Every structure is written in C-alpha cells, then in structure tokens.
C-alpha cells in the first residue's frame, strides 16, 4: 500500500517536472495556436467551458454539430419559439465561432425577427403602444449588437460584421452617427465593399456634416474598384458635385477625378 502510494507520487512528480519543462518549450507554439484559433481565446468562462468540452469531445466534428444545431434553430424559428431560438443562436456560436455566417444571421434574427415575435406575443402591433414597440426594438437591437461585439472578438477584421452592425444601428436604433462610424470601420477592413465608404459619407451628409462627407468622398473616390459593384461611380461623383454645390465650393477648387 505504502509502496503504491510512493510509486504514484513518483509518477506524478516526474510527469509534473517533465511537463513544466515541456510547457516552456511549447509556449511559443501554444501562443500561436491560441491566437489563430478563436475558439481557444474565449473570455467568458461559461462559453469557454462549453467550447472546451465541445473541442474535447467532438474535435473536428464541431462544424457538423454547429450545422445540426443551426438547423434545429431554424425548426424552432418556424414555430416562433423565442427562448429556444435565442439559446440556439448562442449555442451555435459557442460550438463553432469560426463561420461569420452564424454570427451575422444570428444577429439579424435577434434584431429583426425577435422584436416582431415579442410584440405579437404581447397582443400585436395594433394593441401594443408605440413607445413599447420602440423599447422592444431597441432592446433586441442592443442584444444583436452585443452578439456582434462577441463576433468581433473572433473576427476582428471582418467588414461584414461592421456593415451588419451599421445596418442595425441605422434601421433599428436610427443612430446615424453610430452607423456612420460603423460603416467607416467596415471600410477600413480588408476586402471591404465600396458601398460601406459611400454610405459613411451619406450618413455624414444626413447629419448635416457636409464638409466631412465631401472630404471623405473625395478621399475614397479614387479608391473605387474598377468593377463598381455596389460602388456606383456616377452616384459618388454626382454626390460630390451636389455637396460642392451645397457648400459653395469655388469652381477652381472642385474635385477633378484623375481617371
């Protein structure tokens, strides 16, 4: 008995000493792995535990399991099961946070579908007072923005997440300044669509910040991609001319496109 305890202690001590040395050796590789794999860099201990268990027990199957959970979410969405849909959106993102698709579509459901369900559950659009409807819309929009904030921790360079954020800020919160800022952040990301830059200027203009909008459009106009999908070069140039006219820019100081 005593011998067994001594043997067990010896085994643990040898493994601990070896492991301490080996952990030092592997530390740079481990840091690189954690940086590259968003699933290993969670802050929330609750989701981290869930993710860790998933990784441990499912390994590479998490993509498959996340897809299955997403399908289940759709099934609950059809019957407007709000708690289940909300929970499954979070579960899917915790299981596999790598695809931006889950984050964006989850945020859309939170921001656009769930307020409608809540209002209808409270009596419908006819019966629920306008301020209450607005409050519900704001609450759901804030939830969706928090969901997108979590997504950005995993995908810090995703233009799609910033444009989605801007859309929710614009259409649900009617916050022009925040939406303009989000479109600007979207434009700063790699492979950003040009319309993000164009909409940033448009929202500045709507806030009355015309000089800033003009300066921005002049700055981004040369960066417009050759294939103006979503760029609408004629609209951009026309908007520059409109702003120059509204701001009374002297003819000799008007913007002259290089191309």
């Amino acid at each position, binding site marked *: 008995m005593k011998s067994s305890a001594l*043997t067990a202690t010896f085994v643990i001590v040898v493994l601990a000493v070896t*492991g301490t040395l080996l952990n030092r050796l592997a530390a740079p590789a481990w840091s690189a792995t954690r940086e590259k794999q968003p699933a290993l860099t969670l802050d929330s201990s609750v989701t981290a535990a869930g993710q860790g268990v998933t990784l441990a027990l499912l390994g590479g199957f998490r993509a498959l399991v996340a897809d299955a959970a997403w399908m289940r979410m759709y099934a609950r969405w059809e019957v407007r099961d709000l708690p289940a849909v909300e929970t499954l959106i979070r579960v899917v993102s915790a299981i596999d946070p790598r695809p931006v698709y889950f984050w964006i579509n989850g945020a859309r459901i939170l921001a656009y579908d769930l307020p409608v369900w809540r209002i209808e559950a409270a009596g419908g659009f006819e019966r629920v007072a306008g301020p209450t409807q607005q409050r519900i819309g704001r609450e759901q929009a804030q939830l969706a923005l928090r969901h997108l904030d979590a997504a950005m921790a995993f995908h810090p360079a995703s233009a799609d997440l910033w444009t989605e954020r801007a859309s929710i800020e614009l259409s649900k919160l009617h916050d022009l300044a925040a939406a303009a800022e989000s479109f600007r952040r979207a434009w700063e990301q790699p492979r950003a669509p040009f319309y993000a830059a164009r909409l940033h200027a448009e929202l500045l203009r709507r806030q009355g910040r015309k000089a800033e909008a003009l300066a921005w459009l002049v700055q981004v106009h040369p960066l417009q991609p050759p294939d103006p999908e979503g760029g609408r070069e004629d609209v951009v140039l026309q908007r520059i001319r409109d702003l120059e006219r509204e701001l009374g820019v002297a003819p000799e100081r008007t913007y002259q496109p290089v191309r």
Partner: protein
Amino acid sequence: MNAVPFSFWRALLIAQNTLREAARQKLFLFFLLLALALVVGARWLRDFSFGAPELKFLADCGFGAMAFFGAALAITATAQLFFSEIENRTALTLLAKPVWRAEFILGKFLGLAAVTAIFCAMLTLLLMAVLRWREGELMREFPETFASGGAVSYAMVALGGLLQWLKLAVLVALALLVASFAQTQLFTVVTGFFILVICHLQYLAQDAYARAGSWFAQNIGGALAAVFPNFQLFALADSLNAADAPPALHVVRVVLYAAGYIVAAGALAVYCFRKREI
C-alpha cells in the same frame, strides 16, 4: 535478471507482433471502417453545412473522425493488446526468456504507435483524395472563384494528419503507463478516456485558476497543466490555407513536446511494470 544487454531488435519484434495482433483484431478494422465511412460520407453531408466553407467542412469532418475514432482506437487497442498478453500468459512466457521489461513496453508502444500511424495515414490520404475530388469539381463549376489556384493546401492537410498522429502517440504512451500498473482492462480504458478529456480541457482549468488570482489556485492549475499534456496544442494546423501554415520552428516544438511526454510516460511505464507481479 537482465544478463543480456538491452536489444532494440527484440523490442521491434514485440512491436511487429503487436501490430500483427492489432491487424487481426476486429477492433482496428471496425474503427478504421467507421472513420473511412465518415470521411467519404462527409461528401454527402455537405448539404447540411451552413457556416463553414465546403472544403473546410470536409476537412473538419475528416480530422474529427481521425481525432474521435483514433482516440477510441488508441485507448482500447492499448488496453486490449497489453492485457491480452497478461491474461493469455504470453507475457509470462516472454519475460521468462532473456527479454527486458523495458523492451516489452517499448515494443508494445512502437506497435501501437504503428497502428495509429497506419490509421492516421489512411484517413489523411483518403481525406486528401476527397478534398482533391471536390476541389476539382468546384474549380470546374466556379472557375472565376479559383482563378488564383486551388483553395486547399495539401501540405497543411498532411501536417494536420501528422499532428493528430503525434497526439494519439502521446495518448498511447499515457494509456500504456496506466496499463502498466492497472489490474483490469476496464480500469485502463476508463482512465484512458478520462485522461483524453483532461488533456483537452487542461488549458481551460489553467485559465480558470489563473483568473482566480490566488497563489494556491495558480499552482494547482500549473500542476495540472504540467502533469497532463495539452492536446489543444496539436490543433496547430487548423486551416486549409497555406498562408496560415505554422512556422517550422513551432512544428518542431510541438514534435519535441510530444516526444518528451512519450519518453517520460514510457519510462514511467517501464518503472511501474518492473514493480508489477505478472
């Protein structure tokens, strides 16, 4: 007791025999066929893929099969092949001859490592074939998307397979360590699965203890992280993109990390087995 010097060749003979025994057993074929079916079947599961790009989804399924069925194979095969030698008294016969117990453990490890290597190699090759097939189809279907070349780095797939094998080899060494002192096969299998889960989760425990802030908790977390290897480290090549390839030095570090744990667990298995009455 050991009048003859240690012989690597005798260990290789035991390894060869272990490999032959494993090939004869239905267990190896069962796990292999299940995993192969899953890798091939993933081609038809892609319709259920919403989030991940299709090729990444296929790769995830392949590596998932390798990790899941590979771990089950490593633990059960180790327990079965080790205890069958003891229960059938072949170990007694063998060790009555001038064969070191260290040779026996080394031979068992090499044989089982070869079993898992064959398993990982077959799955990796099949995964590459499935990916190449589907990539070719996609390239013909959407040539403009693949204008800059293929989307799959097969070197990354091979590296992923190698890292999975290293993880399984460490698991085999730890399962052998447990088997070297365990009295039953069931205990070895159950403990092996516990070790598998702990090794995957130990980094979370370490993080949690570190967040707790107390000196005692941090040391507990540190001890846990030292005793059990971190299996998440073997997910270094979790991408199909060559641009995401880890630096060679990091791969070397992970290989040395695995080798270190294998040597330590193997040496401890020899130590425990030498004290064991057969």
